């Protein structure tokens, strides 16, 4: 799977999972705060540096097609933003036309520079946020995540359900494919059916055995869990523990400095710092004045 843990010993692997979760939240905060493409590009580049540190490009090389799709949809997004932008600033007139009764008194068919930068900023923002996902999932093993959840005071039963589900999902997939094969051998070929047939009759012969085999498995699992003292009325030990090491502290300090720089920069150039309109929950008297380019 694309997001499954791959063992490694990079600084990113050694980070405390909580730091990594914190980092993802931090990136969301910062990228929503930043509006100009240059600062956003710096954020993106620094995430890419972390990618390189963790060895992710090598791991994801199999998924080149995903990047192509992302790139293409990003380009479409930028193009759409560019063409639909209608606010001030310099523009190139391409093919001007008016739509009758359109409430805005400006013609379509102009390429605004501001529209271009706005679209680019949006795309970089999304890419930044998505790039944090593999930084967490590819470098953190399931037991580590479970321990962090434990540290964050999630109940143990929830953690157990989480890690067992992760453990068994590949098994469910292989069972599903085995069953599908078994039915193909009886001339029941889901992949070759029409959509109507799929809906009408395709899944019963596949889903029934899958369901039965899962039920049987869960019986076995219950025996295995109980005979290993699950739920014993004692205080459970947690062998895996994660301390914040100096790598974590360095990371956190760099993050803090960067955040300070962003806020300072925003205030210096814009006169205020506003993460974005997503701060709807901030009371109106505390909200900075709304910013609309004119």
């Amino acid at each position, binding site marked *: 799977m694309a997001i499954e843990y791959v*063992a490694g010993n990079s600084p990113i692997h050694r980070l405390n999972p909580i730091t990594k979760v914190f980092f993802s939240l931090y990136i969301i905060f910062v990228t929503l705060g930043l509006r100009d493409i240059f600062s956003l590009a710096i954020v993106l580049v620094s995430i890419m540096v972390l990618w390189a540190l963790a060895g992710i490009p090598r791991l994801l090389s*199999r998924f080149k097609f995903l990047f192509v799709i992302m790139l293409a949809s990003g380009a479409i997004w930028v193009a759409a933003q560019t063409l639909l932008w209608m606010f001030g600033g310099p523009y190139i007139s391409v093919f001007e036309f008016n739509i009758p009764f359109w409430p805005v008194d400006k013609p379509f068919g102009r390429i605004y520079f501001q529209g271009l930068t706005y679209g680019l900023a949006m795309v970089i923002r999304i890419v930044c946020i998505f790039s944090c996902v593999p930084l967490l999932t590819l470098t953190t*093993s*399931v*037991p580590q995540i479970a321990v962090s959840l434990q540290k964050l005071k999630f109940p143990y039963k929830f953690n157990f359900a989480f*890690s*067992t589900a*992760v*453990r*068994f999902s*590949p*098994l469910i997939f292989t*069972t599903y494919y*085995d*069953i599908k*094969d*078994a*039915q*193909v*051998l*009886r*001339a*029941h*070929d889901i992949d*070759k059916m029409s959509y109507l047939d799929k809906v009408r009759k395709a899944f*019963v*012969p*596949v889903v*029934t*055995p899958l369901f*039965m*085999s899962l039920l*049987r*498995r869960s019986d*076995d*699992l*219950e*025996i*295995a*869990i*109980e*005979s*290993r*003292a*699950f*739920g*014993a*009325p*004692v*205080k*459970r*030990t*947690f*062998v*895996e*523990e994660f301390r914040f090491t100096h790598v974590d502290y360095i990371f956190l300090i760099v993050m803090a400095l960067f955040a300070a720089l962003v806020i300072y920069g925003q205030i210096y150039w814009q006169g205020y710092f506003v993460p974005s309109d997503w701060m709807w929950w901030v009371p109106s008297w505390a909200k900075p004045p709304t910013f609309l380019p004119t």
Partner: protein
Amino acid sequence: MAEPIVTIENLSFTYPSGERKALDNVNIAINEGEFVVVMGANGAGKTTLCLTLNGVIPSLINGTYEGKIIIDGLQTTKTPIFNLAQKVGITLQDPESQLLAPSVKSEVIFGPENLGIPREEILKRLAYALKVTRLDGKEAASPLQLSGGQKQRLALACAIAMQTKILILDEPTSQLDPIGTTEVFSVTKDLNKKFGITVIMTEHKSEEIADFADRVILLHEGKVVADGNPHEVFQNEQLFNESKVKLPQVSQLFHWINKHEKAKEFPVTLEEGISALSKLFEEKKIHEKKGYMINRAESSHSDKVVLETREMWHTYPPDFVALKNISLKIYEGEFVALIGQNGAGKTTLVKHFVGLLKPTKGNVVVLGEDTKKKTAAQLSRNIGLVLQNPDHQLFAQSAEEEVAFGPTNLGLSKEEVDKRVDEALKLVGLEKMRKAYPFRLSFGDRRKLAVAAIYAMKPSVFILDEPTTGQDFQGRYDIVEIAKNLNERGNAVVMITHDMELVTRYSHRTIVLGNGEVILDGPTHEVFEKPDVLQTTYLKPPQIGQLAQALEKQGVHKDIITVDEFKESLSFRK
């Protein structure tokens, strides 16, 4: 004598849906350090016995429970499972579903963590448990990446980490290949002999059992019918036949010899068999028939090729070469066994035969048609594959509906489908069960139903992928007899199995796969004459073949591969 560590007194248990008692007045006392093997056909009560020992019955599984079990001073019905878990560790038949953690390490520490044992102590236990099960260095691996044998050893390590004095292994090797079986047996033996752990194991493989069990208990329909050391218990041939449990081949031979010429000792292992038989030869009590030729029905296949692979390769992405340059021809009317360790490529190969996989290089031709040009569903009227697990295909409300599914998909008329359903159910002996709900059938019957479902498609080539997994001795013969029946009607049969005895009894030709290559291909007896080549893919000739090969100097034909052939070759002094 010290107190027994396990005492079972007048134990009876009936499942809520059971028609008879699963366990019927069982009385057993087991001493610390014993290695006890419980034998019995499927349904004899072996698994039920295991689950009563660790308290899962009656805590998790309800039913009518009588009698009592005392484990190391604790009565199971009055002790919570988590306390019993520190006395009794258990491994289950399916290596897959008993492992629940994402890594080997977290798997092993799961139990001790639940008990709240101090961290340092758990780490010590982890190191110890992995060392004795020879899994050290694999802490970070995911249990899913392990081989079958390693998975079972991991399950053992989990039990050991609980520091139990008693280990229960419920058919630990029934789903493993020969190398996995050897691994699990040798680790278990170590745990018992070196570390003094009491072992209670249920198992079908009588030849291995004879090698290391101190004591054999035979169950039949919930009752203990024999209990003693292997030498005593294996002497009672009739009892084993009635209980449908197999004796070691050496013992089978000596039961026959003893009827003519009483040997002094009764051998149960290969070594004992070799020494006992060579003594008889030396004393001239027994000798090879002069000029004896093994009477082998030459394989009577026609010249028509039904299945052919031409310089076929298969590479799984990104670069795992699973099959290398396979060129085979299978003729109409042949019975072929396909053997080799897990991962050798057997299943990958048969999936090519039926078109589920297409070769990445070369061709597969079924009845003159290239599989690349057809889908697996289209090929299914010519070639049938019964997959390993019958539960992966049964879904219908009744047995007849199940069998009718395939032919109906082929678009046959109602009359034709009905005719085929009757015929198929009759072939496998389930005609009385036609209205039965498939999931309610026994495992053996479910497997027969799966065969019937493929038979109803009337393919001319039948492939059985490990029809013996999880089956007892009788179930194995039943299913292979069906295959033989089909073969006698002129169909080609290809069977994947790890059971060498079945191979020698049924197949004319044997193909050995190792690391994706055909390493041997020829008449079965010729293949088993090359133990050194077989060894490279961790296979051995059946015990009787090893006996014959060891006694070659005494004039025994070294190509003997079945007990019957051995019997025929011997004659007694007048």
